[in-house]
């Protein structure tokens, strides 16, 4: 009870110093409905009840309908941010309508039961946001919390996620703010609360009713581990959408390609900027990134029973960037993995067979729909490593192009050391949604860091 009270007091303190909402496009002269401060402290349920009462008129269910059937094919949530009916949701909630406007259309259902058509104004595929517009002006809207004005929630602060989970009706979920996710290149808020399908695109608000983030995802296999897109990305997109020229439905793919290309340019420049450092694997060295936004895991078969006949130690580092493009395509990740394999009691030919399994699995591993990607084409050869001994490597380079997004590719580079008959290092870099030039550049840096330990 004392703990709860402390949280409530903290909230009250924060709300008291909340400045006016930021952003050019919103809100105009009128005070946003949900911006009025709540009474401090009080029972928990009362706080949620008050927040819900404030926020509810501005929250929408966003439905993607199959145009011909008039039935819903996906459901999400959204919220109004201005008097002229501009609303925010997730890109993944509206992706079908954005990509196939001839087949799908968008509709909203307000909490008062009214419904109507939605128009897509803009989207941000990298941060999974979309800005839509109602066909009528709004009577209620929400303001964004302004981080630079001291409106940043504190870790442990109570937040309230609102949306329409599983199409069961509008609901409010109480949870806590846990800061930004470590090891994430794109900022993401770690929200401890139960987000369920259908709540995507809904707002997560502070006790003052200001939007702190947009509901976007939850961790599968976690308990109450959910993620929010920080509000400032949404505020930026709204600002851009309201001044931009009307968007043409036919340009969706070109716009996605533009955003993905811009993102990878920035991301690969950042990776190159952080640089690789050589990490030691037995008698070899191989690159590991200095960047902090990789999730790294190690595994070994050293403890297996019966004892392995070849010892394999693997490290695998992968970025959390996972950009939803459509139902069958997520992209944007970068993965580095190294397997150090050494014979325990295998002879040279047996070791080569074992190595082939490890290296073959590393060089392969390509899946996806043939309507989204071209076939994968490869080059393979023996290449001299960039070390003093010019350690021979067996290297393969495989690439496929994105059919819908010109200039973007998935590339896999695998290198296997070929200087010992009882020990080898299998290194792999997998780059998703990258330009060919960036792939060649980072691939080259990667390969140049592999070799014998000095």
């Amino acid at each position, binding site marked *: 009870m004392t703990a709860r009270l402390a949280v409530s007091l903290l909230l009250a303190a924060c709300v008291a110093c909340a400045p006016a909402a930021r952003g050019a496009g919103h809100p105009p002269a009128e005070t946003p409905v949900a911006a009025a401060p709540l009474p401090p402290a009080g029972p928990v349920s009362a706080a949620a009840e008050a927040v819900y009462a404030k926020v509810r008129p501005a929250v929408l269910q966003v439905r993607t309908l199959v145009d011909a059937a008039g039935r819903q094919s996906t459901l999400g949530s959204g919220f109004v941010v201005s008097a002229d009916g501009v609303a925010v949701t997730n890109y993944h909630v509206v992706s079908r309508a954005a990509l196939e406007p001839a087949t799908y259309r968008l509709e909203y259902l307000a909490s008062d039961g009214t419904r109507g058509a939605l128009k897509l104004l803009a989207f941000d595929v990298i941060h999974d946001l979309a800005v839509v517009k109602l066909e009528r002006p709004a009577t209620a809207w929400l303001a964004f919390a302004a981080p630079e004005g001291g409106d940043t929630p504190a870790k442990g602060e109570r937040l309230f996620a609102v949306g329409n989970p599983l199409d069961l009706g509008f609901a409010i979920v109480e949870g806590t703010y846990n800061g930004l996710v470590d090891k994430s290149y794109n900022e993401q808020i770690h929200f401890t609360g139960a987000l369920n399908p259908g709540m995507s695109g809904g707002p997560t608000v502070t006790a003052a009713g200001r939007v702190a983030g947009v509901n976007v995802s939850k961790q599968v296999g976690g308990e109450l581990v959910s993620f929010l897109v920080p509000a400032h990305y949404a505020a930026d997109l709204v600002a851009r959408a309201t001044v931009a020229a009307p968007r043409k439905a036919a340009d969706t793919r070109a716009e996605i390609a533009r955003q993905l290309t811009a993102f990878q340019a920035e991301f690969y420049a950042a990776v190159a900027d952080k640089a690789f450092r050589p990490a030691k694997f037995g008698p070899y060295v191989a690159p590991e990134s200095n960047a902090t936004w990789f999730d790294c895991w190690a595994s070994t078969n050293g403890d297996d029973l019966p004892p392995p006949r070849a010892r394999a130690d693997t490290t695998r580092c992968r970025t959390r960037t996972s950009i939803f493009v459509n139902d069958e395509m997520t992209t944007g990740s970068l993965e580095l993995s190294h397997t150090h394999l050494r014979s325990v009691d295998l002879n040279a030919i*047996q070791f080569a067979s074992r190595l*082939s399994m490890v290296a073959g699995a590393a060089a*392969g591993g390509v899946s996806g729909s*043939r309507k989204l990607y071209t076939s994968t084409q*490869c*080059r393979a050869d*023996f290449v001299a490593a960039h070390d003093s001994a010019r350690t*021979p490597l067996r290297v393969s380079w495989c690439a496929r192009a994105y059919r819908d997004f010109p200039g973007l590719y998935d590339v896999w580079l695998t290198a296997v050391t070929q200087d010992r008959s009882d020990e080898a290092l299998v290194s792999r870099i997998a780059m998703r949604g990258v330009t060919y030039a960036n792939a060649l550049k980072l691939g080259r840096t990667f390969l140049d860091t592999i070799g014998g330990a000095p």
Partner: protein
Amino acid sequence: MMWIEILSRHRDVVSRTRIDGDAATIGRDYSNDVVVDDPYVAARHVRLARDDAGQVVVEDLGSRNGVRDDATGARVASGAVASGRVLRIGETRFAVRDADAPVPAEKALPAAAASSRTLAALAVVALAMQVLDGWMATTGEFRWTGFLLPQIVTPLVVLAWAGIWALLGRLLSGSARFGTHLAVTLVAIIAFDVIATAGSYVGYAFAWQWPSDYAYVATTLGLGVLCYAHLRVIGDRHRRLKAVVVGALGLVAIGTQALTQADTRGYGTPSTGMGRLKPPLFRMRPAQDADAFFGRAAELQPGLDRARTDEPVTAGRYTYDDDD
């Protein structure tokens, strides 16, 4: 003197009767020189007699079904018949042969069947190669059951394969020649293994993709040669026809596989040679400069860009499943 031959439906000789005089009769009645048990034949059906010119003349003795030419089925009027011409009475076929009728020249005995010693040697070599392959591919825990099963199954398959050919030979040419078929099969297995192993080592040594990409051509050709060899063992006749049939089937098989490959190439596990590494000792190709390698990698881009629009969009998925 003449011979009367009763023939089967397949024109094989069922019985031969030597006629010492100049005339003979055929029918169901026991007074005939040649008695046939055919309900469609008259008691005394046909008379064969040599005329003054020495020609055999056939004479219908008033039967209901008459005498017919075997080839055309047309009724034959009484008259001379050439030696060896097949006639039909009822459902019985017969021919008359003069004593001086020509016979084919004496055939050489077929090459001696593979001796059991050769067979045993071949079997030991084939088995040894298989055991060696299995041993070299065993990189996990060694289990006798897993290791021995293929060594038992393969010989059984080989025996069955040779047995089927022997059975065909017995049906078509009358002699099974199981040992020879077995020898042919064993030689083929040894040759397959040697060529496949050599191909994969050469592919590794020079970083060539084609030995594995086109292994199916070699496999199909080898299978064609094997079938042709079996057919030759069965019989020496119609060599050209057999070669053409086997060749045509082989081409159809290669064409089908080439089409399948063209449809799936680039989807699924890519062909990089990473799955067929050998001990570094076997590497013949010198390690290339990274510049050259990345130059070749860069060359892929225009092809990929063309494929975006040129490659047919099919409903399929990449076959390889991964957590990727």
